């Protein structure tokens, strides 16, 4: 394996409290030094990172690559390239594939697809219940042994709390992390927009905050009862942030993330009936967004995820409530994080930590940091490079983003995963 010198960039490594100009030295797929060149180090490749930022590769806790089962929407090849070009070196795959990731065979299939695609490290999340139906437990231990990093029920609620309790007890027995998107099935009422002024004006079925906070409260109680570690995904509202803050203070072993677009858009930004804004949980109010931003800055929300959901055109063509929810969001992840920094919502160090060290700790991975000995997962980006969200620059198969046509500031120039260059902006081959 080649020896690489990422030279003269501004190294930001929150886990090791590093922020200085210097070089990162890589050999045998591992970080070997972030200060002085090791004796006798002769780089095979020198990556000039002058005026750029060098940081740990990003770890995305919630993505959909649409394979297996929905390759008309996107493929491993298209989406892992999109991920690599976005600086993502590790991603967690939600179990709502087709078939669902509820048997070791599907987990193995995903491993094969991932190896063929050769881009970021992919960890499947095992289905918590069979077919995500919320009735019977999945074979969590076998799924863990087949490479699943956690368990979860994707966007599907577990309606019966006794089953959720047992699933959490079983997960805890095998020291499995539960990744839980709180959403009460009944209170959600098949809604498609935040239950607020906009939904009322446009006659859209609304989803109240209580659909999230009540499911969250139930799960927090069960976390205490069962001892299961829980990570709450895609938090969308003020009262959830408050509840998670209280639970952490109380001593529960819980963590949480927020999808990047929730930190930038609210119901007030929505263009009525524009399906690009159809996302679940829905865009809520300015007050909710403010709390999400503060929750991130204060550490209540540990990480930012892309919640990447690429769609084919047909999925978004229709009357708003009938379209499919979700945004293709990997490629805007970094520039939108940098926008938070520019708006003084968080510091650059916090933003990078929320995309690397913090999710690594949630997943208990030796990753997300430039610590010597760790796998060389590195992202190099130019914080000032501007680019337009258009078909020329876009790599994901899904063009379903409300940011289409907008100018973004900040772009990944090079991504390395275990010491391999998996993306290089200057090379058309992307290696």
């Amino acid at each position: 394996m080649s020896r690489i010198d990422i030279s003269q960039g501004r190294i930001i490594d929150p886990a090791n409290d590093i922020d200085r100009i210097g070089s990162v030295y890589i050999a045998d797929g591992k970080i070997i030094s972030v200060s002085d060149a090791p004796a006798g180090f002769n780089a095979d490749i020198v990556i000039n990172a002058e005026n750029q930022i060098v940081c740990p590769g990003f770890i995305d806790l919630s993505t959909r690559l649409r394979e297996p089962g929905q390759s008309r929407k996107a493929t491993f090849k298209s989406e892992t390239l999109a991920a690599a070009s976005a600086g993502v070196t590790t991603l967690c795959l939600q179990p709502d594939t087709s078939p669902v990731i509820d048997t070791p065979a599907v987990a193995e299939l995903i491993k094969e697809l991932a190896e063929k695609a050769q881009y970021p490290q992919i960890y499947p999340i095992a289905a918590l219940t069979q077919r995500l139906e919320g009735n019977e437990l999945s074979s969590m231990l076998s799924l863990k042994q087949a490479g699943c990093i956690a368990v979860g029920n994707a966007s599907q609620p577990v309606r019966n709390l006794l089953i959720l309790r047992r699933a959490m007890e079983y997960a805890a027995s095998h020291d499995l992390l539960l990744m839980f998107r709180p959403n009460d099935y009944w209170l959600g009422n098949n809604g498609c927009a935040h239950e607020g002024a906009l939904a009322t004006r446009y006659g859209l079925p609304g989803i109240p905050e209580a659909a999230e906070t009540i499911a969250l409260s139930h799960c927090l109680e069960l976390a205490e009862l069962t001892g299961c570690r829980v990570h709450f995904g895609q938090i969308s509202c003020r009262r959830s942030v408050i509840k998670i803050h209280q639970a952490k203070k109380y001593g529960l072993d819980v963590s949480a993330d927020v999808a990047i677009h929730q930190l930038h858009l609210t119901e007030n930004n929505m263009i009525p009936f524009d399906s690009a804004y159809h996302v679940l949980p829905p865009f809520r109010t300015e007050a909710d967004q403010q709390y999400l931003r503060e929750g991130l800055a204060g550490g209540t929300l540990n990480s930012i995820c892309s919640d990447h959901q690429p769609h084919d055109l047909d999925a978004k063509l229709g009357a708003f409530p009938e379209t499919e929810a979700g945004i293709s969001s990997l490629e805007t992840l970094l520039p939108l994080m940098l926008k938070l920094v520019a708006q003084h919502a968080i510091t650059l160090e916090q933003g990078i930590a929320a995309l690397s060290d913090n999710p690594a700790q949630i997943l208990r991975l030796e990753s997300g940091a430039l610590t010597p000995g760790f796998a060389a997962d590195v992202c190099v980006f130019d914080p000032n490079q501007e680019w337009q969200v258009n078909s020329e620059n876009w790599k994901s198969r899904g063009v379903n983003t409300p940011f289409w046509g907008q100018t973004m500031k900040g772009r990944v120039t090079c991504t390395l995963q275990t010491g391999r260059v998996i993306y290089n902006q200057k090379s058309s081959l992307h290696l």
Partner: protein
Amino acid sequence: MKSMADNLQLNSEGKLKHFLTIEGLDKSLLTEILDLAESFVDMTDNQVKKVPLLRGKTIVNLFFENSTRTRTTFELAAKRLSADVLSMSISTSSTSKGESLLDTIRNLEAMFVDMFVVRHGISGAAHFIAQQTAAHISVINAGDGQHAHPTQAMLDMFTIRQIKKDFSNLRVAIIGDILHSRVARSQIQALNTLGAAEVRVIAPKTLLPAYVETLGVSVSHNLTEGLKDIDVIIMLRLQKERMSSALLPSESEYFKCFGLTEDKLKIARPDAIVMHPGPINRGVEIDSKVADGPQSVILKQVSNGIAVRMAVMSMAMQKRGVV
């Protein structure tokens, strides 16, 4: 919040191109619709009920949801404008074969249609069709989900203006299932645009949408209190399935609390009029004596429906110098 109406409903000269919602249309445009409708009302009294305004034009009524009254009045309105009309009930034809909404529209476009009148059970459907359809085709929303029913609202405004002349001193109560009502949403927007003194909604909390006051209404949960000083009473139809979905305990309890009876009617102004977009559930939201009584203008609404729809259709076609 951005308004969708600005760019989509109006052409570059600010003329009506599609009629999808009251939102974004100003008082002068709504007044223009009412004035034009008035000329058509006079005409329908004539022996010859037709004008050649839309001769040679093809209008397709696309009804994805069943409706007798609305479809019939749209059909009559089109015929009186001398257009060729085709009415399609889509629930029983192509969509049951798996054809998408967009494909249905594309196919009809290929048959050189000039206007779609659309009723659909999903909010935003008419808006979607207007966005997707060829530039020369106008779309009239005949009711989409719980969003809008602008021609119904305009025929109600027309009926109110006929009797009350001016909106500025009017207090209007809308009573019943506001939550699921596209009619109520459009009425509220129209009344506020036309400058009504007050729009009051009266219903139990289960039948009111969240933050209903943001629509520009005052709220009451009590019919007896809510009817005070009211000039115009608009009753809404109560669907039977609201009981099974736990929004209400029973029809009889609903009638007791929110049903309009002769006694309750006396609380409103003595010259108050009673309206209902139909079809009526007698003994559920309204007592027969009131529905058929001297203050009821329910049938007048129906007759006015044709003239108002003629006005909207001809104005939407006017954009290309047809009229």
